[in-house]
């Protein structure tokens, strides 16, 4: 499985509209939306159309859409995209984060969805952490160091620079990723009680825009994913995850549901991937819920 060398990955334009989901993309359209797109498209040269591609791992550039999650799902259902295929858009009208929260963005940021391969057992449960870790590794390789706030918020310099949402439906697992490349929402625009302020991710190559950054990220993540599953057990992965984990030893406020709130200290990761907390000397494992630094 992991031994095979991934085939070359292409960029493709989603040339026809997906009814109700996305407008057709044109090379001019996204370019007009933001100079970074324009620079990327120019650097990429001629981008072929999606046409009758089947079961591919390519990066599909779509026009403005409600959410790349819905576009990607349709493309998976239609047999166009295979695992590690992805969709990127310059603009979303109904971008969503966890629990249908709004994901605030502007053209110039990465707004993409990656089709995830199916995984067995614990690997399936750990997927959010795996993606968090791999994207953090990939971002760190391309710019400033990024850490993962459990389970998969990506922080740099204490600010959230990227977010991930995983949706598992039937046999189709999608990861939506937003990276604040050109713009980060100001604190007052974020929902009340947000965990951490937003910040921008600055790539080492300042000229790189969302499309090329995404291309590099997907390549990193795919290679990392194959290596990880081939070489390590889930338990070993958790050890590795700890090395990129933010807020260890930090005192946080834990919110479980609406009514349960308590303070605890972040200790690490439990064997099933939960957040290990020390609540007044008692060990607590958090599988759902949120933590805010105190």
């Amino acid at each position, binding site marked *: 499985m992991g031994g095979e060398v991934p085939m070359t990955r292409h960029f493709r334009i989603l040339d026809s509209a997906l009814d109700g989901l996305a407008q057709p993309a044109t090379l001019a359209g996204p370019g007009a939306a933001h100079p970074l797109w324009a620079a990327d498209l120019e650097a990429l040269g001629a981008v072929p159309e999606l046409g009758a591609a089947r079961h591919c791992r390519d990066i599909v550039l779509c026009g403005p859409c409600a959410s790349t999650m819905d576009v990607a799902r349709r493309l998976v259902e239609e047999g166009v995209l295979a695992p590690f295929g992805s969709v990127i858009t310059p603009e979303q009208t109904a971008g969503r984060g966890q629990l249908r929260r709004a994901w605030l963005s502007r053209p110039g940021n990465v707004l993409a969805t990656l089709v995830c391969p199916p995984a067995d057992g614990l690997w399936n449960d750990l997927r959010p952490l795996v993606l968090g870790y791999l994207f953090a590794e990939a971002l760190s390789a391309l710019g400033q160091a990024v850490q993962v706030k459990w389970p998969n918020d990506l922080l740099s310099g204490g600010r959230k620079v990227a977010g991930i949402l995983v*949706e598992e439906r039937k046999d189709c697992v999608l990861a939506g990723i937003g990276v604040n490349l050109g713009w980060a929402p100001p604190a007052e625009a974020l929902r009340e009680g947000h965990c951490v302020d937003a910040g921008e991710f600055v790539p080492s190559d300042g000229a790189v825009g969302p499309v090329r950054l995404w291309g590099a990220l997907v390549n990193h993540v795919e290679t990392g994913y194959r290596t990880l599953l081939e070489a390590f057990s889930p338990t070993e992965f958790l050890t590795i995850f700890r090395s990129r984990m933010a807020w260890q030893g930090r005192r946080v406020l834990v919110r479980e549901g609406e009514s349960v709130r308590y303070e605890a200290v972040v200790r690490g990761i439990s064997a099933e991937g939960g957040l290990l907390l020390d609540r007044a000397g008692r060990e607590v494992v958090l599988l759902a819920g949120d933590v805010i630094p105190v």
Partner: protein
Amino acid sequence: MRAKSFEQVLEEVKGKPILVANRGIPARRICRSITEMFQAVAVMTATDVDKTSPATTGAHELLLLGEDPRAYLDLDRIIKMAKDRGIVAIHPGWGFGSEDDSFPKKCEEAGIIFIGPNQGPMRLLGNKVAVRKLAEEIGVPVVPGSPEAVSIPEARKIAKEIGFPIMLKAEGGGGGRGIYEVYEDAQLESAFSKASALAKASFGNPRLYVEKLLTSVRHIEFQTIADKYGNVYVFDERDCTVQRNHQKLVEITPSPWPKFTPELRKELKGYAEKLIKAVGYHSLATVEFLVDKDGRPYLIEVNTRLQVEHGITECRYGIDLVEEQIAISFGSKLRFGEQNTKPYLHAMQVRVNCEDPQDNFSPNAGLITSYVSPGGQGVRIDSCICAGYRFPSRYDSAAALLITYGNSWDKTVMLMRRALREYKISGVKTTINFHREVMKHPDFVAGEYDTNFVRLHKDGLMSYTDQEPEPVRLARLVAEISARGYNPYVSLGEYRGRADKRLGRFQLVKAPDTADATFEPRITRAMKRDAILDALREDRAKDIIHFCDTTTRDITQSNSGNRFRLAEDRIIGPSLDKCGFFSLENGGGAHFHVAMLANMTYPFTEAKEWNQFAPGTLKQILIRSTNVLGYKPQPKNLMRLTGEMICEHYDVIRCFDFLNHVENMRPFAEVVLHSDKHIFEPALSMSWAKGFDVPHYLEVTDAILNMCASVMGVSKKKASRSIILGLKDMAGVCPPRFMRELISALVAKYPELVIHSHRHYTDGLFVPTMGAAAKAGAHIVDTAIGSSVRWYGQGEVLSTAAYIEDEMGLKTLLDKDMIRATNFTLKQIMPYYDKYCSPYFQGIDHDVVRHGMPGGATSSSQEGAMKQGYIHLLPYMLKFLAGTRKIVRYHDVTPGSQITWNTSFLAVTGAYKRGGEREVRRLLNVLDIVNLAPEGEFTDNEREARLDLYRDSNDAFRNLLLGKYGKLPLGFPPDWVYQSAFGTEWKAAVESRTEASPLETLPDMDLAAEESTLDARLGRKATPEEFVLYLNHPGDALKTIEFVETYGDANNLPLDVWFEGLERGETLLFQSRAGKPHVMRITDISEPDEQGCITVRYSVDSETMSHKVKVRDAVGGDREALEMADPKNVYHIGSPSNGDLWVMHVRVGDTVKKGEEILNISIMKQEKSVYAPVSGVVKRVLKNANYQEDKIMVPVKEGELLVELGPAQAGCPTCKAPLASEDFRFCPVCGQKI
């Protein structure tokens, strides 16, 4: 320093406090030595979790470390506290700080003796690279490889020298962690970088070294002990080859491996001694080797502490290593030497851990509900648990170290098998069962295995079933019944509460022994069919009438809802067997189904047992032609399969068809008539009405004889000699004069045909009718034992016999004293059934001759009407019954009686909904007219009005009209009935009518597919009986199979306990399946707690237990009270994992399609959609969430029941009325097409 004697040390230490900086098993073990010879004060560290644990009982004092569970690692704090307390010495145990080489140094600085080595030697021997270097210097063989951490090119060079496979080991690793196997050069590069990355992440040190990977090795280690004066003693080897992922599971001394020679032992002991001496080490140490299959040893590491498996060395030598270790640390001279220390026993230790081997040895924590430790000679146990202890999840999973020792390896193995049999731990899963399998494995016993043993034999070692003993399981059932006050498995609802007065304990008083020793039964199971039939004919010629007893089937089916159990059969069966009955009807009909539905018994196992406790008398069963033992026509191959199993246990097979469609009986006739032992008894279903007269029944008899003759390939005359003809008046409606007329005609026409008359008591004319039947020529009549006779079953045996003898002048061959004795016993049993299982309406109902509702249906149908609020319509329903029976003609026998009842119920309630009682009266008026006036005299209005009669009928009725159950006995009803029942589609209905047997069109069942479905469901191979039960009644068969697996054979519980449970303070004596006596005593039954659970505390055979029984919904929101989804129930939708429910899409009553998203769970930001597993209707929604609206997420637990669906057919989509059968096409209430 001058060496002290052991006695001097004893003197010095006596009364002084010694601390064990540890917990659990090692802490308890070490405290034992501290308090024995030394008589010192044993002090043990304990965190809050541990401060009341069983392990602390061995300590005089505790050094409390507070709430942080990791406090055992805080050496500075422990030393400071120890100093404050005046501790003179600290023993580190194993694990925690025991291998931290700063510990001895810190103790020294604090002026406390460290019971272990000094820092220097400890550090040297504890470092794998250093010890390897040392070993090479002094000539101890090591595993070939790099002396220290290497780069990739160096690794490649070394690999070339030593050859693949190799291991890359993390310098900072240990205990089996941080090892990567590389099998070929091509893998080296990538494996190296990965291993290095992981080593850095895991141990903070990326450095790796290379070692040859040894593929087949034994793990052999040597216990050494040394004093501070250079004296070293090396004990015999411990063989720790049975491992899992480098974790030891079984340890043995001496090694049972045939290749382990005295020479090899001597060689390895020499290496161990050299190593210890080379570093000036004192205290205990273990030198570990791998030995390959050619006997080549390789040093792997040295452990500088007391080890978990030290106990087997103590047993081999009869010594106390911890005592010696303590003495040495105080300066004592080593007391062990070649002269005075000799091995003389074999010993083995198994590690009993709270782990589930079948789930990859996953640790589990929780309440130990019962604990029985093994004992006796040759057994040593070091445990840290007891009953009632909540095993913590925080620490390692070791629960006990079980050692056996004896003078040979075989004895040691047999001892261990016995000890493991005795060892009982409930509440958590342990490795006990796994070890039992290890002890049985021939390779293990032969000593021929390597460190891959567990991995290679995984399937065999894990194939045990983890089931508690039956008395424990049965006692849990009693606890459940006692907590509720009623038995939920009887399926009678909440028929009593805990506070209700009880009938009292069932304490059987045996009847005086009145058995007539000279009594010889006329007919026995030893006889063949023809001999039995000849005997019946001979007897009848001498005016002797025989009796079939229905006490344990039909009587209790009609009067006790079939709840009569095998338990009570066991009591009265042996005496029924001696009463001189022709046969005992003990199976069939609804009894078969209810055995599984409510009595939780396998019906064929029950039948088999009957033939053991009542071996003499013939056993009789009732079969419903095509439906066999179920409620709808069965495919022919299933009929045959069931028929064969029936023939294994029953002698007389009575078979009826409610339409008297004789062809429906053919498959059964084929099974039974081909045996010369079994008697086939086809029965006439009987009504007493116009058209159902003597000529009609003679015609049916003719058809039966023709069918039997064709099956047997003989003449009709011969067939009439080879069967019994049953006369089945199920409703109890045929009067004496009719039976006299019919039987006289049958006798005249078929003089050699044996006739068996069966009827019910409902009309009150049982005795005179049976008298008339007997007088007219019947050979056998059905009766039951007096104390069981009520209203709806058969009549009483002795009164019927008296009437037959005294009034009719005939004779019987009954042992009446035995019947009286049986009756006395039964009198003590019946009150329980009367109290809890009696029909709602009781009493004789002579109107049965008009309405025809048979037996128990008389009450149950009418009770149904009452419960649905239609009691005021009941007189009309009965009148409708009387009328409709004259229009659509068949017999009121199962399932016909149900169809008639439903038709009447629906017609009357339908009319009532349309226009109240006035409309009902109009309908009945129409019915009267239809039955009184000839067709030609109807007005157009009346023709129109009669179409209302069946407008509300259901699919069962319509199917009957179409001939789907078989041929109607007097032909199809007039066309207007079809017009009424089918409306505009009536012509098509008339067209599609058939008179063929449903068997002709019913395809065979795919038995192989069904069997594999069942096997998969059970997770094992189903027994042949389980398979047949499943095919007949899938749901209830599974329920019973699961019940028996969970609780055992409930027939071992007495009658009162089955219905009422026990009260606080009561004692129950019962027997388990093997006939072993047990005692259970309930000490307390709590009030329901916040979770709605009652805790029952009880003892079983002096073992104390408790069981929580959920009796009502929780009032608080505690997670313990969660209702869990039954993974086997497709209608249960549970949470796929722990997480937050944030959106629930459905509400109660919604119809959902298979695959539709029902809810969504968020776990670690992964949003999981949960889909409807089947189409259905939402019955319950247990948790709701709508995060987008209210920003509230609801925590859910893995497996928690969130939504319960019901079958899609369960209700009418329009009016929501329940639909009784899946094959309804129209709603019986609102007529909505479904």
